[in-house]
């Protein structure tokens, strides 16, 4: 008997297989033999490529640690470059879902990309693990197929508001961030908690996303106890240098959100970063066992200190592993797998314990860090840990969700001065 499989036979075989699958025949043995497919939506070209490359390194290292096998399932990994725009994200998602038939998608990076595909993954029942921060994806427009192991935009900023008011005893603050949704959501979260604890936000500045020189904004900073910045991408590097060069740093302390002081950004920074206090959901100096292995191997394989994008994808990989285990024989059923992902609870991840609320958003530790110079290089050191922070902070979930989503003017800033 010939063992040769002709193309025609092969096609017929796959068609039959597909037919079987759609008829939901009980075929666990075959399903187990097939690899579990993970699709990554990343950005490898253009201005956002920095974060995209870091994401790919994170999941790459995790799969290497696990020898490409998660909970006994062989992994097939497919990476897709969205180009950093919503249309590209949509096209690549369709390819991953319809052509590659992936079991789960990791990514995308940017909030506007996530917003472009959230309805699509819901309609096509494809589980997705995202790092993008858009609040409503796990709040007013929660999607049962999405979990987020990183943080909402405001999740860390609530903590900063609390720390600035209670521990640093600041009374008057100014905020500065890019003029887009991620900036609004961060600054509003800070403002709300800071003002609820007796502080006042007296000025809010919104430079455009593309701002070659921040001097015109920094020149307006005066008569406040602190400045909270929420810059992202390469903007914090420019901003902090100008802040120091113009002599403001010597007078007014700088506070930062997680993207503005991410550990991966430290290699682009020098003296100007020293003294900055930041909040982050991941810190490279975290003491968990998995983090120490993760940081050591990132140094070994790529020669870099990893930041949130890399750690986030490593954790996303851990969630997939735990999800496969929880779903057991149903892991190939997309809906069952999405449900399993929501139930994932991990104790040892690079960021510490991770579990999810019923909207799929992480409940995890948030770190307050201070940047110090060590051997001529800036290093973030954790000075306080807020354990088990929820996206709703200490507010009541129902009351929180009854309000509109954080925006440029919501909650209204009552204490602005001119």
């Amino acid at each position: 008997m010939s063992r040769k499989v002709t193309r025609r036979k092969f096609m017929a075989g796959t068609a039959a297989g597909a037919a079987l699958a759609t008829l939901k025949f009980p075929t666990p043995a075959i399903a187990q033999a097939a690899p579990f497919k993970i699709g990554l939506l990343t950005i490898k070209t253009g201005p956002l490529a920095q974060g995209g490359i870091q994401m790919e390194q994170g999941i790459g290292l995790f799969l290497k640690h696990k020898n490409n096998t998660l909970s006994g399932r062989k992994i097939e990994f497919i990476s897709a470059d969205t180009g950093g725009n919503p249309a590209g994200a949509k096209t690549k998602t369709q390819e991953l879902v319809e052509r590659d038939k992936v079991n789960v998608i990791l990514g995308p990076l940017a909030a506007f990309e996530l917003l472009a595909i959230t309805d699509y993954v819901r309609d096509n029942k494809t589980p997705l693990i995202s790092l993008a921060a858009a609040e409503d994806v796990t709040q007013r427009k929660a999607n049962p197929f999405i979990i987020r192991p990183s943080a909402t935009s405001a999740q860390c900023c609530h903590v900063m508001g609390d720390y600035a008011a209670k521990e640093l005893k600041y009374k008057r603050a100014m905020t500065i961030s890019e003029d887009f949704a991620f900036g609004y959501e961060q600054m509003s979260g800070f403002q709300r908690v800071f003002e609820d604890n007796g502080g006042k936000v007296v000025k809010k500045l919104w430079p455009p996303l593309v701002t070659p020189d921040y001097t015109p904004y920094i020149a307006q900073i005066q008569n406040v106890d602190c400045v909270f910045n929420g810059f992202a991408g390469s903007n914090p590097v420019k901003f902090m240098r100008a802040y120091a060069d113009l002599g403001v740093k010597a007078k007014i302390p700088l506070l930062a959100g997680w993207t503005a002081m991410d550990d991966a950004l430290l290699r682009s920074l020098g003296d100007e970063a020293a003294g900055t206090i930041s909040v982050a959901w991941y810190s490279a100096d975290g003491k968990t066992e998995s983090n120490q292995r993760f940081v050591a191997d990132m140094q070994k394989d790529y020669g870099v200190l990893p930041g949130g994008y890399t750690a986030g994808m490593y954790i996303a990989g851990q969630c997939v592993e735990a999800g496969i285990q929880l779903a057991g024989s149903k892991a190939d059923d997309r809906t069952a797998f999405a449900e399993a992902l929501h139930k994932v609870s991990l104790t040892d991840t690079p960021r510490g314990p991770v579990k999810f609320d019923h909207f799929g958003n992480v409940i995890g530790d948030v770190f307050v860090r201070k940047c110090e110079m060590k051997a001529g290089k800036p290093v973030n050191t954790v000075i306080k840990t807020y354990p088990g922070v929820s996206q709703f902070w200490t507010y009541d979930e129902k009351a929180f969700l009854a309000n509109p989503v954080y925006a440029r003017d919501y909650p209204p800033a009552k204490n602005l001065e001119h």
Partner: protein
Amino acid sequence: MNLWLTLAVNSISLGGLLFLLSAGFSLIFGLMRIPNLLHGSFFMLGAYLGVSALNWHINFWVAALLSALAMTLIGGLIERFLLRRLAGQELAQVLLTLGLSFIVADVCLMIWTGDPWQPATPEHLRGAVQVGTLFFPIYRLVILAVAIVIAIGLWLMIDWTRLGAMIRAGVDDAPIARVVGIKVSQLFTLIFSLGAALAAFAGVMGAPYLSVYPGLDFEMLPLALIVVILGGTGSLLGALVGSFLIGFLYNFGQAMFPDLAYVILFLPMLLVLVLRPQGLFGRAMP
């Protein structure tokens, strides 16, 4: 009061940097009749080359000159072997520069990764001038000084040398210049290389305070474009005045009307295009 003074000084120093960027752009536009959409890429690539040189502990000024030299070569090659093949087809040339700019961006991303690079301000140029309670970084004043030196050098070359006379002839009327025996195509190569070199030099000068990162090319290109449209193509004086005008509009516009930052930058350009299409100091195209 302090705010206005800081903004005024910063406007002037940003104007200096913009002049370094747009002088070459203006000459290329004037002579070759094409907006060189690679100009932002020259700025970025030059800055990256400078940063790499600085990482080998080369002196800052030497690094800036080396980068300018490298870009002279690259600019010359692009003009001689790519743009020249499309001589006379201006739309095709513009598209070629656009296409190349994407290629340069991806090559830079491969070589220098997506991380932002910000070289330290050179040791001897650190510190700030303090006037009352006001701080002003010395480095930005140095940029201004360099821009002035280069502006004078370019002016001497264009207005007082034989080469300058040929360039002016080429800008005014290339066909007639050819008829009287000026090798305009050689001028093209020369000016294109010079423009690339100036942009690269500006990139290195700007790196310590703008930093270098993917996307810098397309942040700088529109600035060069508005400077030149405002000032008039092919006119050094136009590029100079346009640069400082944009420097002031940028700083004061962003501080006073942050929501209208772009309107304030681009509205004057629209007005000039409608009311005086040749720009403030440009001559009407024949």
